């Protein structure tokens, strides 16, 4: 299975019925393809809508209806549109139950960096700082390592997105939960050993008893 698909399917198991969820651009978007049967999840796009859906059929795109990446989407029955102040009031006022974001680095305190690489890449934070500071749960969905270099590090080397630790980190190798006592290894990806996870992680990992294999959403 493709690493992105492992991550998306595992994150999808964090979805809860009746909740409001924001998916970041890129890998996190894939989570919407794996919503477990029977759950009704409300997806928010921070450009101003709750209840957007897949890209409409060719020729039915509406130029006033896009996602945060500017791509055409559709709207589900019951969708709601609003302005940017309301959109971020939902995010910062703790109405957003979960956000799923990509990451460049997560450190041993659970701090996330995902908006710039000084001197190299300065896209800007968009809504990421608001999302990490305000959402009830922050799930990072990212590759465990980049070209063999661990992305889970003792201390951030890149500028932080927020001083608030994230709730959960889901990678193609592991599920890791930041706690007050450090990063706890909760699950391994199918076929991956604890030692392999450790070897690919620069930060210290706590192991509490048996580390089960991930269950993935369909």
């Amino acid at each position, binding site marked *: 299975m493709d690493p992105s698909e492992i991550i998306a399917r595992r994150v999808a198991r964090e979805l809860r019925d009746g909740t409001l969820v924001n998916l970041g651009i890129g890998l996190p978007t894939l989570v919407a393809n794996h919503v477990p049967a029977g759950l009704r999840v409300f997806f928010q*796009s*921070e*450009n*101003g*809508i709750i209840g957007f859906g897949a890209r409409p059929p060719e020729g039915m795109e*509406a*130029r*006033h*209806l*896009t*996602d*945060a*990446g*500017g791509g055409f989407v559709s*709207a589900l029955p019951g969708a709601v*549109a*609003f*302005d*940017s*102040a309301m*959109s*971020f009031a939902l*995010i*910062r006022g703790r109405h957003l139950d979960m956000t799923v974001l990509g990451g460049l680095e997560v450190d041993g305190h659970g701090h996330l960096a995902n908006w710039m690489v000084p001197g190299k890449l*300065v*896209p*800007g*934070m*968009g*809504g*990421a*700082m*608001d999302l990490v*500071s*305000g959402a009830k749960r922050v799930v990072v969905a990212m590759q465990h390592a980049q070209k063999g270099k661990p992305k889970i590090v003792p201390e951030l080397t890149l*500028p*932080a*997105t*927020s*001083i*608030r630790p994230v709730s959960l980190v889901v990678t193609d190798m592991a599920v890791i939960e930041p706690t007050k006592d450090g990063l706890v290894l909760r699950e391994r990806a199918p076929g991956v050993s604890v030692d392999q996870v450790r070897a690919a992680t620069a930060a210290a990992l706590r192991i509490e008893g048996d580390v089960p294999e991930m269950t993935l959403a369909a």
Partner: protein
Amino acid sequence: MISAIKPEQAAAMVADGASVMIGGFMGVGTPERIIDALVARGAKGLTIIANDTARPGVGIGKLITAGAVARVMTSHIGTNPETQKCMIAGEIAVELVPQGTLAERVRAGGCGLGGVLTRTGVGTPVEEGKRTIDIDGRTYLVEMPIEADVALIAARSADYSGNLAYALTARNFNPLMAMAATLVIAEPDEIVPVGVIPPDSVHTPGVLVDHLVSRPH
């Protein structure tokens, strides 16, 4: 009653060096015809306040490419390599503002508030040079209101008295900006008689709008 103007008349009202709020999110909900007229008249030295700088050839991206922009306050420039290139070359000063903070700062400017107290950005580079305030043991940034000389607004519908309604995700920053600028020019898809937009469906009251740009015949 408001009289309708042409895009080039709108562009003439935006002085070189002016601060200009422009609605839109990746070009969706951006007044393209006014922007085309600004490019055509060779506007220079603008300070642009907007969610993003779109892409080359789209919305604010056209102003970047035309060299009309001296400064940008925005949440994201990642989709426009030209903005990044100009920033690195020192041709455009870029202030990056978290998106929710940008929305609240513009709102504060339009609503007469002294600033915004937010957790977003605390302990990050966004905090640099800013005041903080401790409330109930938590630290908040004191973010300043933003106002502008001109707001360029895109709407779905306007009526003859300037009331505006937006469609779906094209609303975004438009209603906030319509409150925060000295001069407000709106470019609607259609202009309809007074009464066609019911009172509960108006998103921006016409009293805030100075000019409507007419549709081409």
